[in-house]
């Protein structure tokens, strides 16, 4: 929401207005930052100071007297997602779709294992890669991006435009639900939690949910060093037809963020004290063994918020006309050398055990399996959940299921 981010912006700008700080020392206050290099941003001195808890009661500092912060629903889309997820996918949809053809084996195996007549809900279906994968099941895909849904429907699939944080489906109706590479585009923990709750809600008791996200954890920790380039050279390597990997192209991404008041908070994704505390706790647990701990900032806190560039070739950009608007408003930048319009996509990269923690906190769902998939040039944490009505039997049933469930689900 505009209101949400502007308020957060003022909070941060007021802080910055008092002294010139290097981003490194700002890190000391625990705000996750994209880049270790500072860019001084001149801002107006704000008269109010108000912290917002995005989906709860407003927490108003003593300074804030003449402004009222209204409580914002967890279902309201934050500005960062509107700009760096929604609008980007809308603009790049056909090009994006053309790069999304490889099906991850674990997801395919899961879908193929479902019984005939299963109702499968794909929340955040993108270009519909998995819709209809099992021809004996009925798939309904939904995505927040109308251009992507159009691609699904043109292929003959059943799809609609909807929000993963607020699914328009009856409770306990589906047999299975999948969320493939979606949750990492949600910018607050409460929204990610809500999306998981929705997946469980729409599935019947005993149904299955499969979630995959980009995560930092690796079975082999030494891979972490290869996985995080900071230079443009590395970004270019992975720019090809395969899925762009999640990276921290720190200096690269900061340059592509325009210097407006709103974007002054480019380094500061979290806009509440609550999530600030979560970050500090989380990073206390993360202790990578690698020498080049580029994912971890100077004082040991982990970086999880990223902008990942998408290069939309010029000949593709003309089609929608959205790129012209994006360039004019500063949402995207031209790269003549590469002949592409460069967009940034927002990612929250999941940390060690983060997805598991979110799911474990739910009374009516149980983790059946989890694994990592390195095949897609990154690390992927995948969970299966079985939903039960009897939470006191959770552990007993879990033991049984883990014994029976083979990795290939056949």
């Amino acid at each position, binding site marked *: *929401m505009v209101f949400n981010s502007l308020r957060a912006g003022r909070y941060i700008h007021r802080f910055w207005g008092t002294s010139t700080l290097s981003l490194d020392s700002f890190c000391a206050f625990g705000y996750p930052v994209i880049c270790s290099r500072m860019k001084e941003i001149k801002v107006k001195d704000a008269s109010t100071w108000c912290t917002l808890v995005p989906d709860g009661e407003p927490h108003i500092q003593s300074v804030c007297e003449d402004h009222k912060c209204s409580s914002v*629903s967890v*279902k*309201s889309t934050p500005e960062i997602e509107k700009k760096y997820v929604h609008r980007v996918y809308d603009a790049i949809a056909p090009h994006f779709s053309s790069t999304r053809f490889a099906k991850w084996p674990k997801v395919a195996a899961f879908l193929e294992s479902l*019984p*005939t*007549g*299963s*109702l499968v809900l794909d929340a955040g279906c993108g270009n519909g890669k998995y819709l209809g994968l099992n021809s*004996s099941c*009925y798939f*309904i895909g*939904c995505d*927040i991006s*109308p251009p992507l*849904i*159009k691609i699904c*429907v043109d292929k003959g699939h*059943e*799809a*609609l*435009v*909807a*929000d993963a944080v*607020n*699914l*328009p*489906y*009856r409770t306990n*109706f*589906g047999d299975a639900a999948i969320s493939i590479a979606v949750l990492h585009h949600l910018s607050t923990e409460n929204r990610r939690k809500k999306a998981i709750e929705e997946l469980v809600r729409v599935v019947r008791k005993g149904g299955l949910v499969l979630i995959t996200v980009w995560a930092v954890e690796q079975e082999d920790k030494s891979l972490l060093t290869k996985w995080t380039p900071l230079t443009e050279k590395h970004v270019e390597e992975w720019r090809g037809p395969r899925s762009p990997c999640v990276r921290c192209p720190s200096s690269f991404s900061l340059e592509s963020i325009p210097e407006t008041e709103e974007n002054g908070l480019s380094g500061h994704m979290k806009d509440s004290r609550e999530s600030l505390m979560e970050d500090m706790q989380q990073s206390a647990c993360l202790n990578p063994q690698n020498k080049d701990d580029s994912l971890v900032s100077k004082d040991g806190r982990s970086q999880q918020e990223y902008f990942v560039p998408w290069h939309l070739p010029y000949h593709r950009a003309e089609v929608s006309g959205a790129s012209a608007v994006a360039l004019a408003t500063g949402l995207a930048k031209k790269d003549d050398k590469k002949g592409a319009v460069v967009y940034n996509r927002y990612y929250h990269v999941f940390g060690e055990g983060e997805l598991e923690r979110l799911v474990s906190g739910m009374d009516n769902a149980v983790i059946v399996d989890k694994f990592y998939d390195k095949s897609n040039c990154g690390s992927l944490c995948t969970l299966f959940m079985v939903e039960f009505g009897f939470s006191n039997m959770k552990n007993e049933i879990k033991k049984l299921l883990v014994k029976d469930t083979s990795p290939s689900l056949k």
Partner: protein
Amino acid sequence: MRLLTHNILSSNIKGVTNGFPLGIEVEKVVEKQVEINHDFLRNIFPKIDWKAFSDASKIMGYVELPEEAPEPSVLDSDLDFLRKFHHALLELHLEEGALVCPQTGRKFPVNKGIPNMLLHEDEV
């Protein structure tokens, strides 16, 4: 949008306690044939809210379905019923029109077969 999809959709507007079934406003219905799968239909049948389904099919212009849900055994014995069930469930598409929240009357547009269920800021 097929009627099987309609059978799962519900209004998710803030404060709405009974968002199912959504009303249908028809501007254009299209028929698209798909191969019949008996196993699929037998498995799907118990999940369907029959009243919502049969009412919706009438609005879409198809009146062949019985008012009351038949016994499941009919699916094995009555091929004619199976074909009608299949046709209404999977072959009728709402191309243009709207879905209507039964509690608030709010319309969700359907264009080129795609329902848009996104809510406005004040509805969340």
